[in-house]
């Protein structure tokens, strides 16, 4: 972003990579897949790189409003300094926070989840999505809470999956009734409270009921939880957990 600014240019969109996308080994693959798609569609994008910092979502959901607002104000100052207009991110938590909770703190941007952005590229004819190796595969989509119920985005990821000419199968709890993967509300960073099962196992069981070849996700945290769930059920050899961006990039052999 700094380079664009130095040249006096503005990118089409700022790609907000997020902490998981920057540091988590599994999520980095999603980041790279999405970047390949952006290049493929000739999207002029920038990242904040080392100037990006946690949006504050896990702090806020853990109850630390103070830390959240410190993070938010810092990020907003950076983005406003670069005159950012449009943000795309592959993390529904970053998406929700920047879209909904930053405006009243002075950060007003057009924020899109990467599935929404990819869908718009598709509609503009800049990106072509083909089935490739996923043609005819059974894919079930796990709705991330912070994309689905939190922001009513249900169709963008599904529209993309349909373009893969795959067989899209729904779990018994989907869309508005989607069951959480168990990571939200800062649960990702702590041990669960005592109970008789982990939430991600419950959700994985629901996914397995659809007999999928692939569990599609749209969130790096859901991805981790579902991957762990599939491993727990010893199905990792027959079922892949992939982000929607990875599916499209893989189908295109990028």
């Amino acid at each position: 972003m700094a380079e664009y600014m130095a040249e006096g240019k503005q990118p089409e969109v700022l790609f907000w990579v997020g902490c998981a996308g920057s540091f988590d080994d599994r999520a980095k693959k999603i980041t790279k897949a999405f970047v390949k798609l952006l290049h493929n569609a000739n999207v002029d994008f920038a990242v904040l790189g080392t100037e990006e910092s946690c949006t504050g979502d896990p702090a806020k959901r853990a109850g630390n409003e103070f830390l959240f607002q410190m993070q938010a104000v810092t990020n907003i100052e950076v983005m406003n300094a670069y005159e950012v207009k449009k943000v795309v991110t592959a993390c529904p938590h970053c998406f929700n926070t920047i879209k909904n909770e930053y405006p009243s703190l002075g950060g007003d941007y057009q924020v899109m989840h990467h599935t929404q952005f990819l869908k718009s590229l598709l509609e503009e004819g800049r990106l072509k999505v083909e089935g490739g190796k996923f043609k005819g595969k059974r894919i079930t989509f796990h709705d991330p809470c912070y994309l689905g119920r939190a922001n009513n985005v249900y169709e963008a990821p599904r529209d993309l999956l349909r373009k893969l000419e795959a067989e899209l199968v729904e779990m018994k709890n989907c869309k508005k009734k989607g069951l959480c993967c168990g990571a939200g509300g800062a649960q990702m960073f702590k041990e669960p409270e005592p109970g008789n099962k982990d939430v991600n196992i419950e959700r994985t069981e629901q996914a397995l009921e659809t007999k999928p070849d692939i569990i599609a996700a749209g969130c790096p945290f859901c991805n981790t939880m579902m991957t762990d769930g599939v491993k727990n059920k010893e199905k990792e050899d027959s079922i892949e957990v992939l982000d929607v961006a990875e599916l499209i990039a893989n189908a295109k052999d990028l």
Partner: protein
Amino acid sequence: MQYIPNILFVIALVLGIGYFTKNVRKLIRNIRLGKDVDRSDNKSERFKHMARIALGQSKMVKRPIAGFLHVIVYVGFIIINIEVLEIIIDGIFGTHRIFAFLGGFYDFLIGSFEILALLVLVSVIVFWARRNILNIARFKSLKGWPKNDGNIILYFEVVLMGLFLTMNAADLQLQELGADHYIKAGAYPVSQFITPIFDGMSQGTVFMIERAAWWLHILGILIFLNYLYFSKHLHILLAFPNTYYANLKPQGQFDNLEAVTNEVKLMMDPSADPFAAAPEGEEEAEPEKFGASDVADLNWVQLLNAYTCTECGRCTSECPANQTGKKLSPRKIMMDTRDRMEEVGKNIDKNGSFVDDGKQLLNDYITAEELWACTSCNACVEACPVSINPLSIIMDMRRYLVMEQSAAPSDLNNMMSNVENNGAPWPFNQMDRLNWSKE
């Protein structure tokens, strides 16, 4: 002497409505214990929200069986109230079936009330079976008063509908016997099958039965009205304001605490003097408490939510934490909030103003373990048929735990110090953020 029934009726009406009004005032006072929150915006959108969800029952029917039966009872309740209007007028003025002049339309009205009454009766019996015989987890988990409360309401409705039909049946018999006052009016598609019971009884006996049913019906309604305040059944009234004042923003958008924003601004402002005294003439403001540990720290919409909750348990049955055996139950959060609010209310009734009772909502009602089990997934908020938001209470109480008591689980403390120091919830160096692009 002939006015005695009228006078008794007016006394019953005044007492019934008077006591109810007294309790409604108490209810409003208790709700006002909450902090202010502005919900005066978007009036038309709020009306639409209320029309769709409360009036139109759009969320009830998401569960088709319970939803369908509920719509019957709900429509029955509203329509049959037109009959109550007639009963009140008759009771005050000593008339009988004052609306009979409507002729054919009156027949239609009474006929449809009867059919609805029968449908309500059937629905209520199914509801009772669902609560007491069928193995439905969200009802089975209710014990003690909440369980009895649910059943008492159903018994009330059975008795009221039974009295209504008995009254009509006796009336029909009296009409056919040509008794004084009992003009031929109304259609009785249901109660005509009860009427044969009265064959062979004297006109006086049938008259007594008709009057008894009439009186018990209206007295029953007045008692039921006053029962509401002590019951979960307040939703029949509060569902409307509750949906009107509901949060219309995206469910994922949590409020930004203004008190914190002010602090953060102060910290970010290089010219701010942290040791500055309060401006001349102004008292040093007491620092605001962050988050909620008791009902007075919640806002009035959250307290209205607690009174509106009818304990149906859809929230808890959708809750991922509850489904996997954790202690958290969003329904319990709402019930606890109401119980504590009632306790605080009684404290105020007794002492004039709240006297510290050594208790609070946190720990005495809701434990930290429950609060920390929440994934903030909004399933409970989505499931609620009357737009109650248990999640907002959970978040406010977490805020208190973290910002006032520093009582977060240690894993979360690690996460937060990482965010604070490294700008990420994991212990990675901020300078390594772009490494993925080089791998």
